[in-house]
């Protein structure tokens, strides 16, 4: 027998035939089929016992209770808490995906310094101690006339109180608050009457809202929607927003002339604004005279009416002059406002002289509003040092030289003050649900280090809870089960502290009695005069910029806020919400300017220009551009990107009334 090539082939043939009678080919086929169903680069699912934990959302001022479904130490989904009146099970889309924020691609965990070298941005890491030393060096050499400013994004917290104390210890330290849109009308009411005010929306039968996104990111959504079936909603706004679309009556009004309608209403209700006949209101604001009379009649007939003019989170608050008029309207009707709550302490940044800030320490929280950077930038001295304590690179972090990141949402014990729409004062803790990453610094503790006065936030929070316990007032609602316990029934403050740490909120009882029966003639007179002054000042149009730019934002998606990359579902993978830097115009306007839906254009104001994507929307008033301040598609989930201007950068802040209406020009890109 010769062994040759032929034998080898025969052997191979035999092997091949034999293989068919072995498991090899069949098993490999099965295995590879199964492998394709479980590619190794597809993430593996977490395993472990599924538990329920509770916390409170801190992403905006709404104070929503949160139920987290956790696997081990990891929340895998968040929902509202159906058992509490604070939530009624509702949570907004931003809150529903809030547990993703610790893993956001634009999150910073460790402090770093950003310097501009030859037009290029250079980033160098440093420790929190080195950051503190760098700031201290600057503070020691602070030029005369410049101040150290702590910018509080969410006033009313224990942290805010710590900030106020610390500001007094810093060289020429100032405590200021960022522009707050929510709660503006009630805050004005308080300052006019000297009595803290709260609204009882659950008892209201009529709500007249001036540009407030009542049903799309205002107040506590669960509370507003639960009350919604009982009140009639009249929405006064220049464009068909989500709230206007869902309102019982939408009253379009020329941008910036809301106060004229309010004057007309006040005239019909009290006779105080003489001369503001429905016809005059129509000529100034475009609201038909019969509509003015109709709203006034409805307000008069209502048993518990509310006038809310908190403005849009991206549109800016009404000026104090206009706001006093809206506040006065609440006094002129049978109102659902009652005397309650804790006084609102705000020190608007607008009050600071321009170019006076030497060192700006920006809080990590978010006011929920899309404050244009220009509002803050105009107060900065040349070469001022901006320090962002936010864990995200967007928002103030975009403009900061030093970034000392705070723990992200759900990573540390936080507090939640009274919600802007709460019927009474409230307080909740937001216990952490995710272990914090090493290196994160609590903002109040960092600033305390600068002031040479060590503070531990959790200790201060505990002291606050002890004080609450000592008053014996109010009640505690446990998120698990919704059980309500009077504070008196907690034997020790530790019991109260533990309850709040397991997910619960404290709330004051509702007061008896009315807020105020009738407004004084002097108050009315002052309100009318200031509003008239305001109306006279506005309204000049620049022929080179014939369009009126109004801006909108969706709460907690703009300014210092950050959203989960999953929000791309709304902005990018569907057309549900317009992303940042899109500009909606009426079909007539688009025709006149030769712009198409989806086309690119350049929006120019006195402050600069910004590329925008055109949205043709018949719900926008002709001659008006409604632009979105918010996450742009490439900034929601993508890696950090520097530069590029946003709508917020080109809005013109105007004295005490920031950026409500800016004259603008739009041309094809």
């Amino acid at each position, binding site marked *: 027998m010769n062994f040759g090539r032929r034998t080898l082939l025969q052997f191979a043939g035999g092997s091949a035939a034999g293989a068919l009678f072995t498991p090899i080919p069949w098993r490999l086929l099965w295995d590879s089929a199964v492998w394709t*169903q479980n*590619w190794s*680069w*597809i*993430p593996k*699912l*977490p*395993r*472990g016992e*599924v538990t329920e934990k509770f916390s409170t959302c801190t992403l905006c001022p709404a104070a929503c209770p949160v139920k987290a479904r956790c*696997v081990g130490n990891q*929340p*895998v*989904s*968040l*929902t*509202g808490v159906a058992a509490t009146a604070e939530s009624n*099970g*509702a*949570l*907004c*889309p931003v809150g*529903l*995906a809030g547990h*993703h924020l610790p*893993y*956001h*691609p634009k999150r910073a965990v460790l402090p770093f310094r950003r310097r501009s070298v030859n037009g290029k941005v250079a980033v160098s890491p440093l420790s929190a101690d080195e950051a503190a030393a760098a700031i201290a060096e600057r503070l020691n050499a602070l030029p005369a006339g410049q101040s150290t400013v702590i910018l509080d994004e969410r006033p009313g917290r224990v942290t805010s109180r710590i900030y106020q104390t610390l500001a007094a210890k810093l060289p020429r330290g100032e405590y200021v608050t960022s522009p707050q849109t929510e709660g503006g009308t009630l805050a004005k009411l308080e300052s006019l009457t000297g009595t803290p005010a709260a609204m009882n929306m659950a008892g209201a039968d009529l709500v007249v809202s001036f540009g407030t996104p009542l*049903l*799309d990111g205002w107040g506590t*959504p669960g509370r507003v*929607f639960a009350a*919604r079936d009982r009140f009639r909603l009249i929405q006064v706004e220049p464009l*068909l927003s*989500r709230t206007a*679309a869902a309102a019982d009556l*939408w009253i*379009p009004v020329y941008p910036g002339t809301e106060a004229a309608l309010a004057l007309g209403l006040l005239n019909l209700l009290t006779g105080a604004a003489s001369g503001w006949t429905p016809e005059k209101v129509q000529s100034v604001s475009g609201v038909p005279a019969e509509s003015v009379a109709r709203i006034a009649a409805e307000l008069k007939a209502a048993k518990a009416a509310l006038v809310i003019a908190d403005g849009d989170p991206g549109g800016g608050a009404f000026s104090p002059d206009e706001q006093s008029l809206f506040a006065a309207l609440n006094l002129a009707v049978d109102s659902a406002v009652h005397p309650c709550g804790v006084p609102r302490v705000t020190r608007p940044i607008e009050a600071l002289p321009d170019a006076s800030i030497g060192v700006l320490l920006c809080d990590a929280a978010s006011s929920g509003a899309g404050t244009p950077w220009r509002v803050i930038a105009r107060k900065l001295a040349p070469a001022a040092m901006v320090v962002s304590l936010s864990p995200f690179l967007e928002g103030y972090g975009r403009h900061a030289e030093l970034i000392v990141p705070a723990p992200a949402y759900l990573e540390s014990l936080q507090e939640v003050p009274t919600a802007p729409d709460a019927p009474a004062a409230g307080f909740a803790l937001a216990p952490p649900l995710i272990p914090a990453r090493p290196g994160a610094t609590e903002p109040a503790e960092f600033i305390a280090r600068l002031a040479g006065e060590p503070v531990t936030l959790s200790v201060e929070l505990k002291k606050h809870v002890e004080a609450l316990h000592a008053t014996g007032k109010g009640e505690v609602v446990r998120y698990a089960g919704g059980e309500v316990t009077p504070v008196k029934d907690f034997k020790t403050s530790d019991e109260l502290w533990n309850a709040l740490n397991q997910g619960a909120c404290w709330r004051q009882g509702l007061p008896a009695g009315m807020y105020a029966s009738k407004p004084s003639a002097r108050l009315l007179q002052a309100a009318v005069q200031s509003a008239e002054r305001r109306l006279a000042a506005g309204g000049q149009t620049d022929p080179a910029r014939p369009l009126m730019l109004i801006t909108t934002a969706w709460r907690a998606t703009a300014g210092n806020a950050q959203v*989960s*990359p*999953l*929000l*791309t*579902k*709304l902005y*990018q*993978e*569907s*057309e*549900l*919400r317009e992303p940042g830097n899109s500009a909606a115009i*009426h*079909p*007539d306007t688009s025709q006149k300017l030769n712009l198409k839906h989806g086309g690119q254009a350049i929006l120019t104001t006195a402050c600069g220009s910004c590329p925008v994507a055109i*949205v043709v929307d*018949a*719900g*926008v*008033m002709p001659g008006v551009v409604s632009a979105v301040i918010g996450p742009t598609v490439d900034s929601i*989930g993508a890696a950090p990107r520097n530069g590029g201007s946003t709508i917020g950068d080109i809005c013109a802040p105007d004295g005490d009334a920031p950026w409500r209406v800016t004259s603008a020009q739009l041309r094809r890109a």
Partner: protein
Amino acid sequence: MSTTTAKNAKNARYGMVIDLDRCNGCGACMVACAVENNVPPAQAKATARTGITWMRVENVANGASFPEHRTAFIPIMCQQCGEETPCVSVCPQQAVEVDPKTGIVDQMPQRCLGCRYCMAACPYHARYFNWWDPEWPAGMEKALNPEVAPRMRGVVEKCNFCHGRYHAAKAKAAAAGRRDIDPADYQPACVEACPTRAIVFGDLDDRSSQAAQLAKSPDAFRLLPKLGTEPKIYYLTRRPWVREIASASSPAEVRRG
């Protein structure tokens, strides 16, 4: 084997009734759906055509100009067709079936070969194709829902009424020795998340369920009823123009006026 008595729970026909007059288009349902079903964030290149949204809220308008212009929102997901289910008929892989026990149109992504015939056949544009492998930013994969397997590139997926929650409700009932689930234990994520309570879910064959009652309301209608596919998603509206647009031959095509 010891099982002798009724081995199976009673059959259900799960469906939804969505009140379009309550929906304010916030998008909570879409986000809650993506969180629940482990749908990843968009890839950089994804668009409204290539993205994955098992639940999608469409924006429609009445066509009138300012100030008579009005808009409404129509959440659209798999309509769970009960008869002549188009995707089932066309699938060459038997990767889709109508579960007789729940009436839910089951899609098995692992069985799918990615031909997308079902997407062409679906009259509601409710099916989505994975153009990319799923990717989450580093660390976020820890926050995946353990009840739903992530899908890979090249397969089709769609709403299945949060089947993971149905499993959980079944297991809870079984642990207590029951075969029938407690209806309160089974609510899809969008229903639970909707802050305006616009979506009601339940067994359409159970006369006591709120969903079954609402589905009989004179304000209730279904999308493209003329096709005879017997969808199990009902919509409610008291606004004639919304009903008219929603009954148009292709609701997804109706955009701002």
